[in-house]
């Protein structure tokens, strides 16, 4: 049996250009190294994507198994300022960390309601600033809930300009998602280059790639032209 390295060497055409060899070598290294670094990220997002698409899978049930507690705590009314600054002040007093979600419109200056969330934990805070009291409703999810939320934890929602990222870890996670996506795009491009450098694999490769592009293109562009 040939080793993979021997197979690689046999597959590669002889190039008269040293820069071509160098590009090929570094492209292969980029493919291995990036793939290995991103492996666990890709598994996480692929597996959680599967869970999101199959919410009927009973073993991954999390919402019905959530733990809910509530209590009332004393607070000091936060100093005057914007909603975000006041919410952060209350969270600091209550020892809560997470991304702030604005759930209601503030109509009464003495009442302040918002939600702080991070994967697996949601705290609904209802503060009565006149009484210096806050009611906390905590929802804790199981591991399936945590992994599912990791897939969608961006701190923003489509068509909702009010909710913006306000927790540093949400931003770090969002940049991570960007980096994984950019890494996957690079992996795809590097794999296409590696395939193109193997003339004997071109015919079947073109068929596989064309099947992929045709089926995917039907959904991205074709359907709205056909219907």
């Amino acid at each position, binding site marked *: 049996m040939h*080793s*993979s*390295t021997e197979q690689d060497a046999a597959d590669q055409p002889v190039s008269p250009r040293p820069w071509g060899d160098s590009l090929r070598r570094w492209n292969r290294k980029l493919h*291995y*190294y990036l*793939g*290995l*670094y*991103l*492996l*666990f990220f890709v*598994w*996480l997002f*692929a*597996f959680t994507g*599967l869970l*999101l*698409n199959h*919410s*009927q899978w009973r073993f991954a049930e999390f919402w019905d198994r959530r733990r809910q507690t509530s209590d009332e705590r004393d607070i000091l009314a936060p100093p005057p300022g914007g909603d975000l600054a006041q919410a952060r002040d209350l969270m600091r007093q209550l020892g809560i960390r997470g991304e702030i979600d604005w759930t209601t419109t503030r109509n009464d200056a003495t009442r302040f309601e918002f939600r702080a969330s*991070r*994967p697996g*934990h949601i705290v609904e805070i209802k503060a009565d600033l006149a009484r210096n009291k806050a009611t906390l409703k905590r929802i804790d999810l199981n591991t399936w809930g*945590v992994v*599912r939320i*990791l897939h969608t934890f961006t701190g*923003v929602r*489509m068509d909702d300009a009010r909710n913006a990222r306000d927790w540093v*870890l949400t931003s*770090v*996670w*969002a940049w*991570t*998602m*960007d980096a*994984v*996506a*950019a890494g*996957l*795009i690079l*992996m*795809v491009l590097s*794999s*296409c280059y590696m395939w193109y450098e*193997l003339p004997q*694999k071109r015919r*079947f*490769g073109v068929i*596989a790639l064309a099947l*992929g*592009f045709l*089926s*995917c293109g*039907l*959904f*991205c*562009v074709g*359907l*709205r032209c056909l*219907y």
Partner: protein
Amino acid sequence: MRDLHLYFGLFISPFVLVFAVSVFFLVHNWLPKAVPNPAGARSVSDLPLPANLDQLSGRERIDTLKPALDWAHVQGEVGWIQHLAKENRLVVPVTVPGRITTVTIDVARREAWIEEQRTGLASALVALHKSPGPHLVGLRMNWFYMRVWYWLADVTVYLLLFVTLSGVYLWYLLRSERKIGIALLAAGAVSVFSLVYALVH
């Protein structure tokens, strides 16, 4: 193994690009605004509506409305139907990746008012990334093509898992790359677990 890694990888590469490119739109909430169809809205009459439409809900109502939507030449995935009881109207959103059609049905008069909005390629990628998704389990996948997409999205994940596992095997055969590969694999694992730990705890 090498050939399967190569050919499966090439087949799923456009799907991986769809999922990867749409991440930027989803994470940063960037989407161009929908543009109304320049042809304008249109109306359709004599819709074939069943007499018991007001007694139906959920998937049953969608399935019953399909002949009326076909009559109006509106195809696509039907979303959450809004029932305006006072006016006896139904507002039916119908989505094809890249286009949203709103069909407002006047049940008593058997007429429909149809407005199309072109949402563009970026929106199509986002819609596909989020399909079928965890919501409206009883309603979704009511259009043949979206059922096919549901299947293709699963196939993409399973093939991606195969490609990653076969990739690890192929890398492991390369002795010269083993040390640095293990270091990168460990660095990736530490990055994922430390980030997840910081987010959750």
